[in-house]
């Protein structure tokens, strides 16, 4: 009976040591990555590291909850020999973190009491609990249980129920507006709503979306004065309606445009 328990204890301690070693290794590699490779680090890989640590902590928890694991609380650790001399084996075992097993390190490494501030907090909580009285305490316990069961129900229910509630709640904070998307894409794609700049004077109706834009003031002057270059005086509507067909005939249409431009003194006919 004793031997079986001892063997169980030994086995449990060994597996616990190996799990803790895994956690230590992954923590070490993660810290190394954060310190040295932070320029190349991406958020998904940081999330992966955190997920790995959380998984390992989970396995340790499962191991401790396992039925076959003896209760570690019943075990007591007593140091049998303390010496101020450096112990090489211990140093190697702990990777140079604990070179000496002396009176200084024992209170730190073998403590079972919680930290002083944690103890304070526990005392306060206990005093509070005693102060409330058993009835109020019972009521609070019941409310807490109800809330937890409600939450569990909501989480376990099928997705459709959940989504219909959430959709109503999430209306207050949309982060994009589909109408804006279409407006912006239209603006970039073919200039909708852009270049609405009208000159002073008789405003040309007709082309609501597209521009009768000049590429610059001087070009119009050139056309009205000389017209020798391949410039067209008017753009948009007038050009399309007066072009005759082949590109070779462009010069003839230019003359027509020049006339109308100098006649009305406005580049925008339509």
């Amino acid at each position: 009976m004793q031997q079986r328990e001892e063997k169980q204890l030994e086995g449990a301690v060994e597996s616990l040591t190996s799990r803790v070693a895994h956690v230590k290794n992954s923590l070490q590699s993660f810290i190394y990555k954060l310190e040295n490779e932070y320029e190349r680090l991406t958020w998904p890989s940081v999330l992966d590291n955190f997920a790995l640590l959380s998984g390992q902590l989970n396995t340790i928890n499962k191991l401790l909850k396992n039925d076959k694991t003896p209760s570690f609380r019943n075990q007591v650790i007593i140091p049998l020999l303390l010496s101020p001399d450096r112990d090489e084996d211990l140093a190697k075992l702990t990777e140079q973190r604990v070179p000496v097993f002396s009176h200084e390190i024992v209170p730190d490494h073998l403590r079972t009491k919680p930290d002083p501030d944690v103890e304070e907090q526990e005392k306060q909580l206990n005093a509070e609990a005693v102060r409330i009285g058993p009835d109020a305490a019972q009521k609070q316990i019941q409310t807490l249980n109800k809330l937890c069961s409600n939450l569990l129900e909501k989480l376990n229910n099928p997705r459709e129920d959940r989504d219909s509630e959430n959709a109503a709640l999430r209306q207050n904070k949309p982060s994009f507006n589909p109408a804006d998307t279409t407006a912006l894409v239209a603006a970039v794609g073919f200039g909708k709503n852009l270049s609405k700049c009208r000159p002073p004077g008789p405003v040309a109706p007709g082309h609501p979306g597209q521009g009768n834009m000049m590429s610059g003031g001087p070009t119009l002057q050139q056309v009205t004065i000389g017209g020798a270059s391949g410039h067209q005086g008017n753009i948009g509507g007038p050009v399309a309606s007066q072009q005759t067909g082949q590109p070779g005939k462009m010069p003839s249409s230019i003359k027509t445009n020049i006339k109308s431009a100098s006649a009305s003194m406005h580049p925008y006919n339509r």
Partner: protein
Amino acid sequence: MEAPPVTVMPVTGGAINMMEYLLQGSVLDQALDSLLHRLRGLCDNIEPETFADHELVYLLKGQQGQPFLLRARRSLSHPAAPWHLRYLGQPEVGDKSRHALVRNCVDVAASHSLPDFLNEMGFRMDHEFVAKGHVFRKGTMKVVVSKLSRVLVPGNTENTEQLSLSSLVELSVLAPAGQDTVSEDMRAFAEQLKPLVHLEKIDPKKHT
């Protein structure tokens, strides 16, 4: 003046035909910061680049229906940098299941006499706008978050007025024709930006 779909034309040498794969969305200004943070985390970890560009769109009206469109872009933050001229073809209508808008794309750099040259060629400037924002990269994917402004006085880029309270978000990849895995990668990346932004393939013609 419409070019036939690029994948049908025989390759006769010269440069490779590049296709632009595009997904677009928008984000409201109040969510812009969270989007920038998320992009900063998801994309390659280089210093975030801001840009301010002035784009002019030139049209050449041919005698057949569709006008020929060229986009000339210059940087307002680097005035000495060359102009960038781009031709974007019609979106390919091949595969309905393809997740991104695919169109032919030809990019060239040009000198500062580009507007005059285009005018001489017969192009007329149809519209212009100013885009300011951030550029992020992830591998071959490029994410551009930009605020568009309309130019009130033609040629004067100081006096601009914002088009809307949202910023345009574009995810694009330039790849040679025929690579369909690109759109899968783009869709996976777009999933990571939900629910802040919904990047989707928006056909500009459908919303005329």
